[in-house]
């Protein structure tokens, strides 16, 4: 009988929202599912996971999982999957899931469906869609092995809401992780922000190289970001120029986002950037180059000097939001 094991992502004891997309995937796949929470001190996160309709919440609470090292996590995930007879192992394709899922696949001799955007259960067979070529083509694929591992694109699977009920919680043992012996966790330098997370925000305001400096990101763009209550994003060019930290990059190889509103400011719209945002519901582009490729995907394009338009837009958005 088919059943799915969802791997929760927990950081510093806190359940990450990425997990909710993997739960949505499990619901759409249509098989009964359980959730596996690995970490150190994950009691609260496990409690939170009980409300999503899983048959069980399995908890591996161990010092081995205090920090994320893939070599430490993979054996336990694979062993739990094997022991429980799971046929599908699902995790969200965050940096955590992308690092972990291929290793679990190897340990299970399973085929991997990476970064899928859709799933359909066709008479018990899972058929996936996944974007390739930076989202310029969509492949349909399935996994031929008896057990399959899937990573799911967060922006394409809406965060699951709790469905009520209280799943049973049971402890599972951590497996030996000999491959972790030659990996030493040194540090996690976290970028902290008061703003919403890029992959979870309803509005994203992103800036490009045309902002010309880190200072202009702060003084020109960030007031607009905050007027919208948005997350801040950036193009690769702006990150490479050192205007903003790496983890704000939107694109094929950065974060993939699909907010209700995406405002691209001074971003020309390279293919790699479009791959990270073109599934946003409404796209606004402000750019002084009327030929910029970003206008080809924008619902509303404003050809203007951003240094003039953005402060005006900031004031207008503040007024509009104050009226609501």
């Amino acid at each position, binding site marked *: 009988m088919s059943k799915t094991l969802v791997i929760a992502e927990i950081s510093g004891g806190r359940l990450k929202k990425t997990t909710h997309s993997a739960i949505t995937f499990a619901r759409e796949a249509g098989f009964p599912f359980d959730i596996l929470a690995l970490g150190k001190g994950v009691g609260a996160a496990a409690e939170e996971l009980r409300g999503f309709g899983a048959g069980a919440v399995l908890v591996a609470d161990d010092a081995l999982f205090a920090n994320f090292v893939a070599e430490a996590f993979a054996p336990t995930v694979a062993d739990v999957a094997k022991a429980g007879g799971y046929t599908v192992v699902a995790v969200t394709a965050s940096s955590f899931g992308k690092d972990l899922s291929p290793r679990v696949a190897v340990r299970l001799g399973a085929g991997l469906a990476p970064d899928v955007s859709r799933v359909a259960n066709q008479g018990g067979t899972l058929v996936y869609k996944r974007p390739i070529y930076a989202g310029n083509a969509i492949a349909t694929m399935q996994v031929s092995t008896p057990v399959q591992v899937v990573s799911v694109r967060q922006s394409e699977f809406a965060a699951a809401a709790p469905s009520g009920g209280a799943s049973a919680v049971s402890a599972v043992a951590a497996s030996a992780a000999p491959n972790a012996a030659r990996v030493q966790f040194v540090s996690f330098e976290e970028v902290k922000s008061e703003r919403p997370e890029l992959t979870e925000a309803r509005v994203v305001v992103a800036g490009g190289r045309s902002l010309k400096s880190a200072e202009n990101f702060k003084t020109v763009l960030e007031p607009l970001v905050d007027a919208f209550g948005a997350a801040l994003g950036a193009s690769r060019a702006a990150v490479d120029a050192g205007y903003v930290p790496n*983890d704000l990059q939107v694109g094929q190889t950065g974060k993939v986002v699909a907010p209700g509103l995406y405002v691209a400011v001074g971003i020309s719209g390279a293919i790699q950037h479009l791959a990270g945002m073109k599934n946003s519901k409404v796209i606004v582009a402000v750019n002084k180059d009327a030929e910029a490729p970003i206008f080809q995907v924008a619902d509303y394009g404003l050809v203007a000097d951003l240094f003039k338009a953005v402060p005006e837009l900031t004031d207008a958005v503040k007024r509009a939001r104050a009226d609501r």
Partner: protein
Amino acid sequence: MKILVSLKRTADPDNANKVKVAPGGAKVVTDGLEPKVNPFDEYAVETALRLVENGKTRIAGDSVVVASFGPKEAATNIRQALAMGADSGLLYTTDDDSLDGDLVARALAKVVEAQKPDLVILGKQAVDGDSNQVAQELAELLGWPSATFAMSVDLAADKKTVTVGREVDGGVIKLKLTLPAVISVDLRIVGGKAVTNNVTPATHNYNDGPRFAPLPMIIKAKTKPIAEAPIASLGVETALKVKYTGFELPPARKAGIKVKDVGELVDRLRNEAKAL
């Protein structure tokens, strides 16, 4: 120190929006797009070269070997890596359509057994399949420590460990690996100061980005060896674990409009798109 780099040729990623789908969705057609070295693999070559150099000179005894899987034409792309400074190439021939990340990882594991490198460096993903799995699978198959999505690499002076900064959601994780190990590299690894080996003086400046091959190196690369053998010679099971059944183009976004000023933009966002 011996470093193995894997390299894939991909259709020109800067024109990926020109890919087409064959009638019936049987395959993706990249006709007219120049086959280029996958950008992340080019960064892997650059990373490897920086680790075996003392500034502009090669550390005696160190080497960089480039392995690729694909059609015979992929030799052209291996040659590009040799022109950058890699020493030799290995080409395991097969059709591109007969490959996937899982098979490449299993084949690479065999190459590693034969070549016995101290480090394997890979791009974090190929920009055609966008799968992002080979480095992780290779590490697991070998039982080697690994660090994916590297934005910085620091090789210890004794060459026994490497400290890697991994670009992850919300920040940077630093891991210290005992060699031999597997590293997959991200964009930022080609920053001027991202790769250090405790031999090249801190005052040495690398340019940002992968190096351009100067003409003498391009000529020299023609004499460097590329060993060619069918992938079957590695003794791997070539059946794939996944099956691609069709391809389509993504739905086009409907054409948008240009607004005349900020006032119109806000008005439309509020009343038309209901996005305010």
